[in-house]
């Protein structure tokens, strides 16, 4: 294909030329010098080309140059009208004629200053004349920003309405611009039409760099303590990427009751930015403190002034539409002069108060359903073009406050709260600086205040599921430097200890599940905190007493309830109880004696002895705990170590199990209490790349095992719990370099793939939702790698 590129030697032209030449096009660049006679470009000269690219308007910056460019373009169009359809005309035009939204009521030129309009106006007419010219034409309008330095990453074509990419920008790189033109020359998709394009940055990790929260992983934007958050609905396709305009955001709740109720999800109010009353597209940018919805007209900003108080601020004439479908008995009620309260049964109420701007609610009453089934609330800006909406969550009847802080004060408050929380996390050096912030934010956002059943701060595992009892231990370990919080996370399970001494599995504000257990790793967690903190000085005595007595009963519970064959060796009653739900020792058995449980209890008894010493308990009581720790250690070695490796046994039938699960290596939590020979053999296996060691940490099942499955939970993935506990144990066992080597691999992998719970041990990658677990493992292991 022979192409003539007519222009003024703007740098973009060279990029266009290069792109065309890469495709094998025969491109000739004809440079026009300012002031020269445009009539020199005649039909004879252009006849020999298949297409002419008119780039006269590219880079034009003043009115005189614009007039000249328009004149040149008009002339070329006229010439090519006589050569159509043999010679195509592709005009590299301007953005001024692009419409701002689907209403096609305003164009980019309308938003410009008079001086800028004077430049755009003559060029605007070029496109208008094309339709009448008779030429075989296509007009390319660039987006708002031309980026000389942007990397090539593909482009998203559109027509005459501005499109924002996933970074919320109307921007195209020179490289993508050139590709778009070259594509059009080849594919002829927009003959006789105007088209545009923006750089596709959705695949560029660098473009997400500013986003602390990856909402496609089902994270929510919230604040520590809050049950309310901004959720992301990706059109019912969990795990799908969130491309421009494919998802919706809504104010939702993670309170326990709705999460357990089918058909009563956490969604409450759906949010849509508006301009002059009409919905507009947006992209989402998140920081730890603030969420920004970028639109073509400006930005909506959201932050949590308090854990139950969300602010939404609009500017430049932007508004906000809030929509809800209420169920029977749910209401939208006027509150005070300008506020409205929406009630959501079994969940909470949201009180909407326009602090500036206005709130217009359309919520027709339906007596038959005792509800306003369809609610539409429009927030409009004030005369200055801005608004500020306060959304307050309450489990009780809502209330309008006498006064509210402004947005800046709210942002300052959440910033201070966040920075204080972040200050507890040790510096992890430049390599992990960004990941440190992301992991910390994950934990911060998953913390909720006491409510309903719970009496202390509590932590969720994921956006809607509370963490289990052993995850609470991992959470406490990650937050070891924030002792009061770490202790609360440990104590909230003891608040619900059963008369038999059992700790519940899960507790949240509205649910209590104690019909299952997870491993007794509380001793392991306390031991971790105790190595850097003097609990006697830093933890109130009543809390230490509570732990000493509560955990003592919990340890006893295992001896009494989890030893069916009365051999002194405790058992799990199914894989779930081990924390590695479907791990291979449980392939054919539910009740299994695995070595990790005995090891956990040995550690636990030692820690109870330590607590006893802190609390100055009678010596015989302390000695009894020490003896039990030794008994469990002896049992572990006598029963489970076969000279080469740890094994497990089925409780019913006594079958010896030697599968290839990481669970056999958990006894390393005993550190140097294990004999050196055992430490050496365990370490050798863990460092063997034909076994557990992968580029991304430790696999949960050896890849050559018959039980290996890249599905389920514990038969392949590099899991946070096993990496955390095995590697800290390895370090304690004196294998510091080995532990650090593996930990670095794991940390780099989870940081790279947005903290996946399930990390593919063969190819890496993100295979699951956002969760506290990998964040905990990362913060603890990265600290070990960097600071120890």
């Amino acid at each position: 294909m022979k192409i003539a590129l007519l222009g003024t030697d703007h740098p973009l032209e060279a990029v266009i030329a290069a792109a065309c030449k890469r495709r094998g096009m025969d491109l000739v660049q004809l440079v026009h010098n300012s002031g020269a006679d445009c009539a020199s470009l005649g039909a004879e000269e252009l006849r020999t080309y298949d297409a002419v690219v008119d780039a006269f308007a590219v880079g034009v910056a003043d009115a005189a140059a614009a007039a000249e460019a328009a004149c040149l373009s008009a002339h070329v169009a006229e010439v090519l009208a006589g050569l159509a359809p043999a010679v195509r005309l592709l005009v590299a035009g301007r953005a001024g004629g692009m419409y701002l939204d689907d209403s096609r009521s305003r164009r980019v030129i309308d938003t410009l200053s008079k001086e800028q309009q004077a430049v755009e106006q003559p060029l605007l007419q070029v496109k208008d004349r094309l339709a009448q010219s008779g030429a075989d034409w296509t007009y390319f309008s660039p987006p708002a920003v031309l980026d000389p330095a942007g990397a090539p990453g593909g482009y998203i074509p559109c027509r005459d309405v501005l499109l924002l990419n996933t970074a919320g920008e109307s921007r195209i790189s020179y490289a993508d611009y050139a590709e778009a033109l070259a594509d059009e020359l080849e594919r002829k998709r927009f003959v006789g039409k105007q088209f545009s394009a923006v750089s596709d940055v959705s695949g560029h990790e660098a473009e997400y760099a500013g986003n602390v929260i990856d909402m496609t992983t089902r994270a929510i934007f919230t604040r520590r303590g809050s049950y309310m958050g901004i959720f992301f609905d990706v059109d019912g396709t969990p795990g799908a990427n969130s491309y421009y305009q494919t998802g919706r955001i809504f104010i939702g709740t993670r309170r326990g009751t709705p999460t357990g109720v089918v058909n009563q999800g956490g969604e409450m109010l759906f949010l849509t930015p508006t301009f002059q009353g009409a919905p507009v597209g947006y992209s989402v940018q998140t920081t730890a403190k603030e969420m920004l919805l970028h639109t073509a007209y400006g930005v909506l900003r959201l932050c949590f002034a308090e854990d139950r108080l969300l602010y939404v601020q609009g500017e430049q004439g932007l508004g906000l539409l809030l929509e809800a479908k209420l169920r029977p008995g749910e209401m939208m009620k006027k509150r005070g002069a300008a506020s409205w309260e929406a009630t959501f049964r079994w969940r909470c109420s949201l009180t909407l108060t326009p602090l500036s701007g206005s709130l217009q609610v359309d919520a027709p009453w339906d007596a038959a359903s005792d509800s306003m089934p369809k609610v539409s609330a429009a927030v409009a800006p004030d005369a200055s073009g801005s608004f500020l909406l306060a959304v307050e969550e309450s489990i009780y009847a809502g209330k309008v406050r006498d006064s509210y802080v402004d947005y800046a004060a709210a942002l300052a408050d959440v910033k201070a709260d966040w920075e204080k929380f972040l200050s507890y996390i040790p510096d992890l050096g430049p390599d992990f600086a960004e990941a440190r912030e992301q992991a910390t934010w994950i934990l911060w956002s998953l913390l909720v205040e006491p409510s309903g059943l719970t009496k202390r701060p509590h932590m969720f595992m994921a956006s809607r599921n509370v963490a289990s009892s052993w995850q609470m231990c991992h959470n406490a370990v990650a937050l070891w430097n924030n002792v009061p919080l770490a202790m609360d996370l440990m104590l909230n399970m003891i608040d619900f200890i059963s008369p038999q001494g059992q700790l519940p599995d899960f507790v949240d504000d509205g649910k209590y599940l104690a019909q299952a257990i997870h491993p007794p790793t509380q001793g392991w967690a306390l031991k971790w905190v105790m190595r850097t903190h003097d609990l006697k000085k830093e933890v109130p005595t009543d809390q230490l007493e509570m732990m000493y007595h509560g955990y003592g009963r919990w340890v006893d519970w295992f001896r009494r309830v989890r030893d069916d064959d009365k051999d002194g060796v405790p058992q799990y009653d199914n894989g779930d109880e081990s924390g590695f739900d479907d791990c291979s020792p449980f392939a054919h058995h539910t009740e299994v004696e695995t070595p990790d449980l005995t090891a956990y209890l040995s550690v636990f008894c030692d820690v109870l002895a330590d607590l006893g010493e802190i609390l100055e308990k009678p010596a015989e009581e302390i000695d009894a705990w020490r003896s039990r720790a030794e008994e469990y250690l002896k049992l572990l070695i006598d029963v489970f170590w076969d000279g080469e490796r740890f094994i497990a046994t089925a409780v019913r039938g006594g079958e010896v199990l030697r599968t290839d699960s990481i669970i056999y290596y958990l006894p390393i939590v005993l550190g140097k209490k294990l004999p050196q020979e055992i430490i050496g053999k365990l370490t050798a296996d863990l460092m063997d790349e034909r076994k557990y060691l992968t580029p991304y940490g430790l696999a949960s099942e050896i890849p050559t095992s018959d039980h290996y499955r890249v599905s389920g939970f514990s038969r392949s993935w590099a899991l946070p719990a096993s990496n955390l506990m095995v590697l800290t144990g390895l370090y304690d066992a004196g294998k510091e370099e080995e532990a650090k080597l593996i930990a670095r691999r794991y940390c780099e992998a989870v940081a790279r793939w947005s903290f996946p719970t399930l990390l593919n041990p063969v190819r890496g990658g993100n295979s699951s939702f956002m969760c506290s677990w990998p964040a905990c493992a990362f913060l603890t292991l990265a600290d070990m790698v960097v600071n120890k």
Partner: protein
Amino acid sequence: MYSVYDKIEGNTFSIARHPFTRRGSYFGLIARPQRHTVPRDIGQWGSSELYLTSGRGGAAALPSPQCMLLVPVHHGQILPYSIQTTPTEMTLHTAYGDIRMCYAEPSLLLVKGENGLGLLLETDLVLHKILRQKGSNSWERTASPACSFVFTPVVGDIDMNAKWDLDRLSTPQVRGKMLPNDAGEFLLAVEEFAELGYVREEYPTYEQGLADVQADWNEYLSHLPAIPFYAKGRETAGYLTWAMLSAPSLLLQHDQMFAGLGQVAAAPQQCQSAAAISGDLTLAIGLLLNQLERQSPEGQLPALADDTRSLYQYAAPPLQGWLLEYLMKKYDMKQELPAETLSTLYQGLAKWDRWYDTHRDDDKDGLPQYEGICECGYDGSPVFRDACAVELPDLCALLALLEEKLGDLAGMLGLDAEQKAWYDKSCKRIDRMVSTFWNGQRFVGRVHGSGETLSQPSLVFFRPLILGKRLPQAIIDTMAETLTEGNGYLTPCGLTTHCMTSRDFSRLLSGAGRITGGENVLIATGLMWAGKTELAKQVAEGYCSGLLRPVSGFYPVSQGIDNSATAAAFQILAELACGTDA
């Protein structure tokens, strides 16, 4: 063919409508229609199956709390059976003999079989739910969903097929048989646990279990008033108010009344239930204290409160004052209750009263508004047809009565100044109510905000009768006259909630025409307290009789005592009708 058939003469209750359970328990046996059963056949022979189910709040939040299907078998063949119920024992009659069940303890059900009968135990489980062996031959069904059940063959044996499936992390299909011993007998213990369960070293015999539950029931029954004319309903109503009492657990610190298994009674129903069981004052006050222990910092009481959940998204009608009036007519509260309890009641209810001033009186005129039908309790009432926020006289009356009772409590606590303030507040509210809502002929209401008058012929406008003689006599007389026979409200089965001659009258909607226990209780007690004893008894007698023996299908009364709320209403009104009311 297996079935549930409940048309056995002498049944205390129908298993098709009520669970078999025991006071204090969080689990029970229920009948559920088989999948193919059409609605009209529910309760008929062959239509239903018998399930073990949990009533804990966490379970109630889930769509399917059924935990285990129970089917009688004989030599492996499933059998048709009918069910006979008494408060303490349930018997499955088969052609080969009986299977009997009783609650030896609130958490321990014993099932006894004879003559070679056995029992199928079947369920399908999903991810993380398993049935696992406990001890030598017991089986535990975990996460069921808010409790665990341990099945132990005390006599006989369990043949269980519950294959573990690692990929499903479950024992997906549970197919078990409770088999008799060589003597043809079995005794199965089913124990419920909030946490993981365990096998006891020994279990009571069936006879011991039955004796225990009978003693418990007899003790409860002894507190219920004798109602000679309504003996037939006394046991059924007594069973429901007894069986629906759940023991303290998690957020509940006192016994709590449930409407059905897993469905806790709303706050007004708790008040009427407390009145119904007020023969045991401590038990009755416990129902009130449960509400106060969940009070919000601003004073709001939950509309519903079970062991794990509280509902605050509407304010249920404040019947606490009515309850205190009822109790105070029966007891010298100062003598009967510890000062600490009186103080708790006083402090909490005072905050509740003030909550209405803060949150439900936007125009601060002393006439609070209901916001939504739930807040009034008149579901489907035409009064709310065009507006959700309305000011009605009954809310004033309920609060005025509460304020007077708060004055009484203040007096008992020696808080004389506060006593006077409460009495003044009560009087002023009544005066304001009368001057605003009494139009010379009847009470009316108004739309909040617009002031538009609401004058539908609804029984809700007669609720102010609970104020008794605090109302001017002329108003009492006028209202009482309207409630006499022939004026559209009084039927041989009690009072309808909406005038029968109104075009808006509906037999289907509880607030637009049905005869409901709760409203009949309020109006009948109000009439009684206002001195209209004869009319009060007429209402009460009609309601109780109609409940047991409907006069005509025309009158929209419940078909029998259908839940603990109806049972409570029956107990209160039967006592009133029999003339033993205080």
